[in-house]
């Protein structure tokens, strides 16, 4: 499917596949992602496409699908994007489990896939420990979050911790990473309790937290249940410190947890706490622009980190496409994009952080991509290590 450049300097149309969970269980994450993709499409159209190093202009079409938060649909959609829509690269998808399900499709079809989910096994083969060739991901990992949380708890003199987490992909990943980092930091995990996303009461977990006598509680969930759990812990044990994961870095958490959110601490992507980010920060301009654009595009819907993950993934791909000369076959384009992502994304300031990818690291982020914050009077306040 090689296209030839015409006299007008107009080359083939590049297609970027985009699949997120715009509906279903992960809709609150997937919907802003899908909207971000739409926004970028509009921006490219307004610019009249992208231009390669050879000066040839290319239209870009982002083909957007919804997988309804179901693994089967994710696999189908990615297959369709790769085989039918002939996308050069695919951005997919919102959830870890759903992404992991379509890894074989990306690898077998030798097409770069960038996930917006955070779990480790997305880029690293859990059985062999090797990094997948075609899989990338943009979110900060829960491992990074765990490092912050463990360091904080350690610094405040806590020695035993309870973990409450949602019985879903995010919660399980929080648990695994927090446990690993906390134990490495010498903290004792005295209780782990899960609940379902739809739960409204937590007396069973709270009773066991009380019985276990821990000194701090870590909550690994996303709103709304994160808010309910936080409120429940706060109501029963008003004094106990509560740490959370970066899944609560959206306005919804503060809105729905109310007073119980005050005093909770957690690491956040910089996007949610832009006013806390120093002007010198390399991400500052990118963040500001994304926030402005997204707010304008959606008529003032609250921005979320997840839209940011989509932005990073699509923009990286666009950068890669801009590096291509016209006249390549689809296979060549895919390989070139992959190579670009792996080798040329160096010190790349995005929404999720400053990315530096390598053959061994298809995420490219460090703990510093997150900022530690606390909530005061319903507002996020930066809470740097010096203030602990």
């Amino acid at each position, binding site marked *: 499917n090689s296209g030839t450049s015409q006299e007008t300097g107009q080359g083939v149309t590049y297609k970027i596949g985009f699949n997120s969970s715009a509906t279903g269980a992960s809709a609150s994450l997937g919907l802003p992602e899908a909207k971000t993709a739409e926004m970028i499409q509009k921006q490219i159209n307004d610019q009249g496409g992208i231009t390669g190093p050879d000066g040839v202009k290319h239209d870009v079409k982002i083909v957007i699908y919804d997988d309804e938060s179901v693994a089967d649909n994710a696999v189908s959609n990615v297959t369709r994007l790769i085989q039918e829509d002939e996308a050069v690269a695919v951005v997919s998808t919102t959830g870890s489990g759903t992404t992991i399900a379509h890894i074989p499709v990306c690898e077998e079809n030798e097409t770069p896939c960038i996930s917006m989910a955070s779990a480790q096994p997305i880029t690293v*083969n859990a059985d062999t420990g090797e990094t997948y060739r075609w899989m990338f991901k943009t979110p900060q990992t829960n491992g990074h979050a765990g490092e912050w949380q463990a360091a904080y708890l350690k610094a405040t003199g806590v020695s035993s911790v309870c973990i409450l987490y949602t019985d879903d992909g995010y919660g399980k990943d929080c648990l695994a990473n927090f446990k690993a980092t906390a134990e490495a930091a010498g903290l004792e995990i005295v209780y782990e309790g899960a609940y379902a996303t739809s739960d409204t009461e937590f007396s069973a977990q709270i009773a066991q937290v009380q019985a276990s006598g821990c000194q701090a509680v870590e909550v690994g969930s996303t709103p709304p249940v994160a808010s309910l759990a936080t409120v429940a812990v706060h109501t029963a044990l008003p004094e106990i410190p509560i740490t959370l994961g970066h899944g609560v870095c959206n306005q919804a958490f503060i809105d729905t947890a109310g007073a119980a959110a005050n005093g909770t601490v957690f690491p956040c992507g910089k996007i949610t706490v832009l006013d806390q980010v120093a002007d010198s920060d390399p991400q500052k301009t990118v963040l500001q622009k994304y926030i402005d654009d997204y707010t304008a595009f959606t008529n003032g819907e609250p921005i979320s980190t997840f839209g940011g993950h989509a932005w990073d993934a699509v923009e990286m791909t666009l950068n890669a496409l801009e590096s291509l000369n016209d006249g390549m076959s689809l296979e060549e384009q895919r390989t070139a994009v992959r190579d670009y992502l792996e080798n040329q994304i160096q010190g790349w300031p995005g929404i999720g952080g400053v990315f530096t990818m390598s053959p061994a690291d298809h995420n490219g982020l460090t703990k510093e991509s997150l900022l530690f914050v606390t909530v005061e009077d319903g507002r996020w306040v930066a809470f740097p290590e010096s203030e602990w």
Partner: protein
Amino acid sequence: MKALWARRNLVNVIAFTVVLAALGAVDIFRPFGLSFSALTGRVVTLDTMIRIGILTIVVVGLNLLMGYAGQVSLGQAGFYALGAYFSGILSTLATRHTILPGITGLWWWPWLMIVVSMILTGGFAYLVGKPILRLKGNYLAMATLGLGVIIHILAGQFPDITGGYDGLTGVPRLSIGSFTLWPMQRYYFLVWGAAIAVIVISLSLVDSRIGRALRAVHTSEVAAEASGVDAEQYKVQALVLSAIFASLAGSLYAHFQGAVSPSPFSFRASVELVVMAAVGGLASTWGAPFGVGLIYVVRDLLKSQLERLLNVRSGEYELIVYGIILVSIMIFMPEGLTASSVQFMQGRRRRHGNIEPQRVQSNGTVEDLGQ
């Protein structure tokens, strides 16, 4: 009469097989650069066809259970999940846990494990079916619902065994000797071969002593018993058989996806299976492939065309329209695709036919048989 029936079935099966084989062949040989999806105007892809084939196997079983034996199951996705997980876990024992390290390279091991999965799932269905099938009507549906949900939840729990919420990866492709049933074009033949075999089995069953016993149990258990039919035994047999079919489908699914995670086996999936069975037509084996097919085609059409038509992001709109279409299908074809189209054709042909059957309710009794 009888011979005629058998011949009609045979003709249908052959025609069906030929059409599917031809479609599959197109994608292998690509005459004039034509691919399968080009044939369907890029609406239905080969991936979709394989999924239709896999679910057809489940729905044929569900049809036997619901349509013929009249025992509703709202937990069929549970058996489907068991098949997928058993196959997934057993075929990756060596790579994941270094249990039986020698089996990694053996091509027949996954095949054997498919059979083992079927036996395990069937055995499980037998164990739970015995007590549960004493219940009638909606109560059975509820019990199976509970089972399905429990299996779904547990599937996400034990990371060492099931891979937890993220699921199990690295399920190997199937092969015969050194001939790998992959890429998809090859797998297509395997899946549809299995689906057709299941359809043939079901057709034979329905038209036998067993099939009649099941249908009799459906209408009136007392009358069936009085005619010498062991209602309980046949209900259990139907449940076990449907579970075995579901397990087979689950195994094929696992080797198709290469990964198994809990999300496709939720309560919602069980409901969707029932929807597919009903859309195709309960008590009609041929309803299964067409019911599953229709649901998939509608969804794929919406996915690929809605954005173009309405100029909106698919997501929510896709589901809204899908819901409306589903409701419309059931309003206008209450007995499902196959029954309704048969009626439609017969309405043309049979001007002077015999008495139309009375309105028969889902349980097969006439509406007013209230004593």
